[in-house]
């Protein structure tokens, strides 16, 4: 008895819904079986234009299809029914794109986020348009690598330095900054250009150079102007006229209470003619030497010149070792992220340097390294590596 009462109640509640649906909206079976006339469709679409909820989407779509499929008058591309559709369908008019009720006016689906559909067809090496001007149509602008520190133009003074607060030259890598370093060929002044902040300009200094057994000279330069002093303690390679060609090690500048200091490596970047000769001859050069901040670290670098000059290098310390490689652009060297050994971790690692000196004279690599090694932490250093001539011992 109770079940019967429940069923009756449910039926009574459902009755208005059934009646309503039967009066206004046909079921899916109805839509499929009950065809509207074109005029009915036009009227329905007109109603739908004023009230988008006046009919289900499938009915509207069916009417659109029906009217669109209606026989056209050959001479008139816009028969009455189609014209009616255009005038009543808010998504068919010229302002359809502005309607919030319509899809946007995209001509095609935008591709989903993914790898590029077409690989970039960049040349393996940058092409110098000037060199192949006759092939201008195929010329690809030269791709200059991004250098963390300002690079060196061929034939110009080229040095790098670490910068710390205080006179001790060494500090926490996190508080060690890099900069460009420049030295007067007579050793009497120097300049440090930090990544940020003002330049550090030495006061004029007096210099002494004494010989040392490894071919370098010992340079001491000291100057004082009032409360400000400057000092260099460096290894130098000089020419016959006593001009410094290569130099490396300690710089200090400031007052007794407020000094800055660091290590440096300096030379004159190889000239364009020298670089051209190296590239034309597909020359391979090897360099080796101790770093300056941590001189227990020995750097070895190989530069392979040619149409696509590259370099590779290793830095070995009693506590660690790592490798890097990259491209040579002009006189500049810069590492590529994919060429570090696996123990170089994290982001922002780089090795930057420059080839300094000319063939027949003292030649070297001035460079800086900023790497984070697994188990070692961050390492910042600067070094002057000397060319390794076949059959000759390597001097520090």
């Amino acid at each position, binding site marked *: 008895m109770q079940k019967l009462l429940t069923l009756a109640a449910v039926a009574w509640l459902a009755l208005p819904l059934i009646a309503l649906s039967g009066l206004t909206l046909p079921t899916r079976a109805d839509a499929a079986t009950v065809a509207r006339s074109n005029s009915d469709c036009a009227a329905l679409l007109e109603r739908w234009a004023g009230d988008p909820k006046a009919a289900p989407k499938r009915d509207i779509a069916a009417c659109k299809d029906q009217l669109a499929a209606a026989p056209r008058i050959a001479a008139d591309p816009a028969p009455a029914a189609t014209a009616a559709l255009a005038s009543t369908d808010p998504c068919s008019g010229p302002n359809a794109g502005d309607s919030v009720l319509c899809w946007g006016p995209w001509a095609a689906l935008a591709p989903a986020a993914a790898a590029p559909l077409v690989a970039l067809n960049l040349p393996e090496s940058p092409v110098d348009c000037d060199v192949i001007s006759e092939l201008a149509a195929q010329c690809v602008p030269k791709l200059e690598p991004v250098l963390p520190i300002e690079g060196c133009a061929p034939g110009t003074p080229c040095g790098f330095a670490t910068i710390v607060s205080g006179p001790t030259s060494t500090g926490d890598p996190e508080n060690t900054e890099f900069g460009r370093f420049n030295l007067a060929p007579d050793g009497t002044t120097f300049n440090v250009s930090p990544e940020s902040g003002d330049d550090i300009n030495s006061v004029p200094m007096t210099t002494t150079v004494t010989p040392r057994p490894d071919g370098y000279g010992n340079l001491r330069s000291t100057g004082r102007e009032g409360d400000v002093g400057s000092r260099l303690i460096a290894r130098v390679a000089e020419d016959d006229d006593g001009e410094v060609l290569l130099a490396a090690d300690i710089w200090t500048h400031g007052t007794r209470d407020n000094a800055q200091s660091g290590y440096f490596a300096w030379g004159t970047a190889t000239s364009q003619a020298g670089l051209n000769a190296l590239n034309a001859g597909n020359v391979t050069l090897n360099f080796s030497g101790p770093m300056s901040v941590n*001189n227990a670290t020995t750097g070895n670098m190989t530069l392979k010149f040619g149409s696509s000059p590259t370099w590779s290098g290793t830095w070995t310390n009693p506590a660690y070792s790592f490798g890097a490689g990259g491209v040579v652009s002009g006189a500049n060297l810069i590492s590529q992220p994919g060429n570090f050994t696996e123990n170089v971790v994290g982001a922002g690692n780089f090795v930057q340097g420059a080839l300094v000196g000319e063939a027949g004279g003292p030649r070297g690599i001035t460079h800086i390294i900023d790497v984070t090694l697994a188990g070692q932490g961050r390492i910042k250093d600067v070094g002057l590596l000397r060319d390794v001539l076949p059959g000759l011992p390597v001097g520090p």
Partner: protein
Amino acid sequence: MNFRTLSAALLLLTAGATAQAASLVLVPSASTVAPNGSFTVNLVLDATSAPGLHPGTFSGQILLDFNKTQLSYGGFAAASGVTFYLPTAVATNGNSQTVSFGFIKPGDVGTVGTFSFTALGAPGTLATLGLVDGDDFFGSSFVNKVPTDQRFTPVITGAQVSIVPLPAGIWLLGTAVGALGLRRRFRRTAG
């Protein structure tokens, strides 16, 4: 108890660190000298704990000062292998006299060179030989140059020399020797 243990540990650490620090010391040939007597003072470097490769080559600038009314400077002789990047310079300011130079010395431990002096002061004078870094504007001028220049700061120690009268025994001995000599001469003359 804990404080004592901590203090003792700190003292030991300090003592250990001091013992391992590089040093530059003056070592006189004698602690006492007679008036007008000559003596020498060695400048000795121990850089075994300095950074860099060992044996290294060490460079630095020194300044020695003393009272010229007590001591007369006779010169500085560099040890074998030691060279100068700054030549020896002597300067006087009132009674104070200074000797300075910059040296380069191969080897971790050894004598840089030897100073020569003559005592001028009256008996009872304590002559002080002060030794400092000759270019301490930036803290230290000392570096190990192998394989690259690396700074270090040695503990620098001067010296003192007492000027004392000759002991009474020396006078007696001298008198006796003189008397004997006179006696021998007198006998020859008499004979």
